[in-house]
C-alpha cells in the first residue's frame, strides 16, 4: 500500500480526486478532459495515467474493467480516519 499523504501531496492528484468525487466510473479520457477544461491542467495522458497509478497504490481510487472499457472511481475509506490519531484526546 502506497503512502496516502504522499499521494495527496501533489496538486494534480488532488484535482483528479476533486473530479472523481463528482461521479464514479470515469474513463482516462474523461479524467483528462475534466483536468484540461476545468482545472487548466494540460498534463499528458501518460502523466495522468501515472498519477492514477499512484492514487490506486494508495488505495484512494479503484479501477474496474467492464467489457472493453476501464473505469476509475474514488475510494474514500483511506481518508475517513486519516486524522483520527491527532483528533483523539486522551
Amino acid at each position, binding site marked *: 500500500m502506497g503512502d496516502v499523504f504522499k499521494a495527496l501531496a501533489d496538486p494534480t492528484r488532488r484535482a483528479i480526486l476533486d473530479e472523481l468525487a463528482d*461521479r464514479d466510473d470515469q474513463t482516462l479520457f474523461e479524467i483528462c*478532459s475534466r483536468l484540461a*477544461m*476545468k482545472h487548466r491542467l494540460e498534463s499528458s495522458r501518460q502523466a495522468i495515467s501515472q498519477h492514477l497509478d499512484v492514487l490506486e497504490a494508495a488505495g484512494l481510487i479503484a479501477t474496474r474493467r467492464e467489457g472493453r472499457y*476501464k473505469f476509475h472511481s474514488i475510494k474514500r475509506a483511506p481518508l475517513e480516519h486519516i486524522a483520527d490519531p491527532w483528533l483523539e484526546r486522551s
Partner: protein
Amino acid sequence: MRIYVTSVLVDDQAKAIAFYTETLGFVKKNDIPLGEASWLTVVSPDDPGGTELLLEPDGHPAAKPWKAALVADGIPLTSFAVDDVEAEYERLRALGVRFTQPPTAMGPVTTAVFDDTCGNLIQIVRVPAA
C-alpha cells in the same frame, strides 16, 4: 483545400450502416462496391452536401489493437455536433446505446461519449454558437 470526407474504422460495414443510419440518424450517400468492401459514406440529413463520413473496414492488422487501446482508455477519435447533448443522450440510451460518459459540463461545452458498436467511441458535443 477542404475536408470532404473523414473516416471511422468499422468492424463490419453492414452493421455500421445500420447503426449510423437507423440509430444515429445519418443518411447513406455513397455505396460503391470496391472489391471485398464498399466505398460507404453517410451524411447528416441537416447537411446532405456537407462532409461525408466514410465507414472504412478495419481489416488492417494494426487497426484492431489500436482501436481496442483507445476504447479501453475511453478515447473518442470522432466527434459529432448536436443541438442538445442531454436530449440526444436520452434518445440514444432509449435505443440501447452504451455511453462511457454521460453528459458532462467541460468548461464552456457539454460532452458525452458513446460506443458505436463497431469498435469506436464517439463524442457528441454542443458547440456554442460562433
